[in-house]
């Protein structure tokens, strides 16, 4: 029961986060700087998530392979690769780095 209440509470709050700006901010006039800040807020959010998720994935012995994979992914992403291709390149880099570091440790 507790788990259900928690999921419902987070779900309801998340929906409010999603819907309130859509209902309230659509036609509000903002200055150019505020407009720029709003337009780029989403980009800042995803960037922060990249950093957070990279840190989480890099816990333990996987730090170097994760950093190399994310670095390779950033290069590939900047060149306009699709998500699937980026996963393949990044995943291959991760697997290769894991293998090499594993062999070096032995």
């Amino acid at each position, binding site marked *: 029961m507790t788990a259900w209440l928690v999921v419902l509470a*987070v779900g309801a*709050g998340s929906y409010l986060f999603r819907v309130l700006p859509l209902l309230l901010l659509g036609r509000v006039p903002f200055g150019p700087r505020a407009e720029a800040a709003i337009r780029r807020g989403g980009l800042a959010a995803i*960037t922060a998530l990249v950093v957070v998720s990279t840190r989480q994935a890099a816990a333990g012995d996987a730090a170097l392979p994760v950093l190399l994979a994310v670095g390779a992914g950033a290069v590939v992403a900047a060149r306009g690769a699709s998500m699937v291709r980026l*996963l393949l390149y990044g995943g291959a880099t991760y697997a290769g780095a894991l293998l090499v570091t594993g062999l070096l440790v032995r």
Partner: protein
Amino acid sequence: MTTDELTRTLTRTRTRPDDAASAARQGALTMLPMLAAYVPFALVVGTTVAAHGPPLAGWAGSWLIFGGSAQLATLRTLVAAGPVAAVITGLLVNARLLAYSASLARRWGDQPRWFRLAAAAMVIDPTWAVAERHAGHTGDAGARRRYFLAAGLTLGGGWCLAVGVGVLAGSRIDSLDLRIAVPLCLLALIGPQLRARGDRLVIAVAALVALLTASWPSGTGLLAAIVAGAAAGAAGGPPRRGSDVPSAEDAGSRP
């Protein structure tokens, strides 16, 4: 035809207005490769659900919360620190949705209220990214509606299904370390922005603040990074816009 060629073909500027089926088809097909790439992340969420309490309630979060990072944080905090902390953590992680919706609100000023209410349920990282990119390719409000709804429903249905598979598979796939999929999926969403000078400043500032606030309570560092990145965006001036997409200001001048 490669995936990149398919995506470019589906999202390039058309010389005539999209018809209903075409816009919806484009939205669904554009989201499919992203959905495929998100499957590892969904499996991670599913195995976490299986390991942390009632599976049905945990799985329901895949469509009620509709955010993998928040769902993971909520479940882990529920076990570690109780329900109140779990709710606060989940909401803090999902507070970034305010930024996505505020950005889309400027694009959707000309959209009907029913669409904004319905589409709100599907606003998340990849749908925000495809909506922002598609807005630069067509000024037809109806086409943009159908495109987003199709993309959102494709992602939502596939995401819930994949999380369900993870729940059912449970510890059988625990040995696979799939966490690397999460940052890679997210990188793909901001790939084009890595080349734009004004956006690079936003990315650098947000990344730096996220690193510096890594030890802050769950979600608060994320919010600080969003605010810092948005402030850098404000200092950098207006982003480059699609030439034929009505903004909120343009929509306000219509009868």
